[in-house]
């Protein structure tokens, strides 16, 4: 951070002007960034007639939560009109186990790759790392066929399996990079005291891991919840996760276009990740930067 004020309080005109410019720019940008969300929020509580007589960019004159209840329980997705609720639960059912499994595998892999290095450990890590950046389009067709062969296409289990598999590389990356910075001497000391692979893991490594576990859970949860490509490819009808169902709801063309319901549904679908971001934003940022900078 640059502290231009340390050479005594210079409150010159140009300084005030400069500060004003900085704050002006920041507040202007903040308003622009907030705008789409505020528009969604405001539209979702306005009655449809009011929206249609004007634009979606307006404060509500009359507040109603009809659009929210409709988005949750009655809105039509394709020909079925029972809202997002069942899809919301499917997303939870798919995402929560996947997050847990990738976290456990991440701990194990990161630990094995850093504290019990074997010949070829770097190659193994390199290959898994590259897996983080493969465009999923390049594996989509074989995965579709494989799921079909095992009879688990279009099931929540199949989708969870896919999300877990392609979540492993990132979890491994997170935990590996975190454990590299834990001194090897700690592990050595434990083994001299007679601790083995798993007891060292359990008594030494795991207690040091909560920060990176939080980072990993947030990263995986956000990614898996927001996944669209796999959901759109490997699920259909009632088994669709909430993001896919949302897209179908917005693009359902039968009947009157209800913008307020679309936006209420959007916010409902985004709520879990927004919640995670608001509660643990610090860790979210750390995950984003850890996943990218340390490549």
């Amino acid at each position, binding site marked *: 951070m640059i502290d231009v004020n340390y050479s005594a309080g210079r409150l010159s005109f140009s300084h005030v002007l400069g500060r004003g410019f*900085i704050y002006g720019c920041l507040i202007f940008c*903040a308003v622009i960034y907030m705008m*789409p969300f505020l528009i969604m929020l405001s539209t979702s509580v306005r009655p449809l007639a009011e929206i249609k007589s004007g634009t979606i960019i307006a404060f509500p004159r009359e507040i109603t939560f009809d659009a929210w209840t409709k988005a949750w329980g009655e809105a039509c997705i394709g020909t079925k009109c029972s809202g997002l609720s069942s899809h919301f639960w499917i997303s939870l059912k798919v995402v929560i186990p996947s997050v847990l499994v990738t976290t456990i595998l991440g701990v194990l892999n990161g630990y094995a790759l850093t*504290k019990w290095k074997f010949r070829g450990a770097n190659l193994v890590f390199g290959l898994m790392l590259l897996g983080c950046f493969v465009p999923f389009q390049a594996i989509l067709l074989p995965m579709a066929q494989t799921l079909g062969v095992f009879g688990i296409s279009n099931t929540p289990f199949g989708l969870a399996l896919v999300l877990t*598999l*392609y979540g492993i590389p990132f979890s491994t990356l997170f935990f590996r990079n975190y454990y590299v910075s834990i001194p090897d001497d700690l592990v050595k000391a434990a083994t001299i005291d007679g601790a083995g*692979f798993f007891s060292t893991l359990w008594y030494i490594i795991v207690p040091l891991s909560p920060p990176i576990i939080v980072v990993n859970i947030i990263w995986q949860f956000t990614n898996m919840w927001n996944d669209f490509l796999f959901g*759109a490819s490997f699920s259909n009808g009632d088994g669709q996760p909430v993001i896919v169902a949302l897209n179908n709801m917005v693009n359902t063309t039968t009947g009157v276009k209800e913008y307020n319901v679309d936006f209420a549904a959007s916010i409902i679908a985004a709520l879990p990740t927004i919640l995670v*971001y608001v509660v643990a934003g610090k860790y979210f940022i750390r995950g984003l930067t850890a996943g990218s900078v340390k490549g």
Partner: protein
Amino acid sequence: MSHATQSQDRSRDTHRRSDMMFWLQGRLSQIVIAPSFFAILIVVYGFILWTGYISVSESRMLPNYEFAGLSQYERLWSMTRWHIALKNMFVFGSLYIVCSLVIGIFLAILLDQRIRMEGALRTIFLYPMALSFIVTGTAWKWILNPGLGLQKFVRDLGFDSFTFDWIIDRDMVIYTLVIAAVWQASGFVMALFLAALRGVDQEIIKAAYLDGASLPRIYTTIIIPSIKPVFLSAIVILAHLAIKSYDLVVAMTAGGPGVASDLPATFMFAMSFQRNQLGVGAASAIMMLVTIMAIMVPYFYSQLREQTHD
């Protein structure tokens, strides 16, 4: 047996046992990582080869593993739609990267000036990253809709001839995707650069400041050059995100009007699952993969080399 040999035996025994234990412990780490590693080997590398195989097969509606040489690639490159997707990719990708960088760095530098409410502002700039592209795409679709959003809003204010209908204009629609994507990613670039700015040595900056260097000069000649590696990281990550962009296009324009806003990712999906052209879909997927790897592999290589040099 004398007491001495007995204890010697025992010690040799425990020695051997600890050797065994040690051997097993060493193996244990391989055993632990094996399931993940082989799973990745199959579902990433195996499946890539499989996709590659589909791309040189006769596959159309159903997989057909008769070898077809490069005919699918020939078909791919003779399709106007693919060329539109590539041109869009180029326009979208370069504008997306440049705009996200410029705005992200600008915000990071502003936030770096001892700002009150820095935390709150950072939260606001970064929240789009937590949202699904389907959610933000839906929002931007209606905001940019001429009869419903921005255009109507400005017209209602009294500017009757104001026109902003890019989203339904074949020639301009790709720029609406840039707007939404930059809005979503620039906060992330800001976070990357803010972290880097905070890591710059304060003493050098103080010295330059005392020497009378102006603030913009300090930034352009000292700070920005010292955080060069972050530029590389940011560009690589953004390029990778751009090539994979799929959800945003689906939610905002569905590739339309017509196929005017198609990107390789939407092209691949359409060919594979809607147009019964598995082979062409696979060929386009391989082109995407090759492009991404051409960016990522040298990057990883340079990063790993740096790490081993440290």
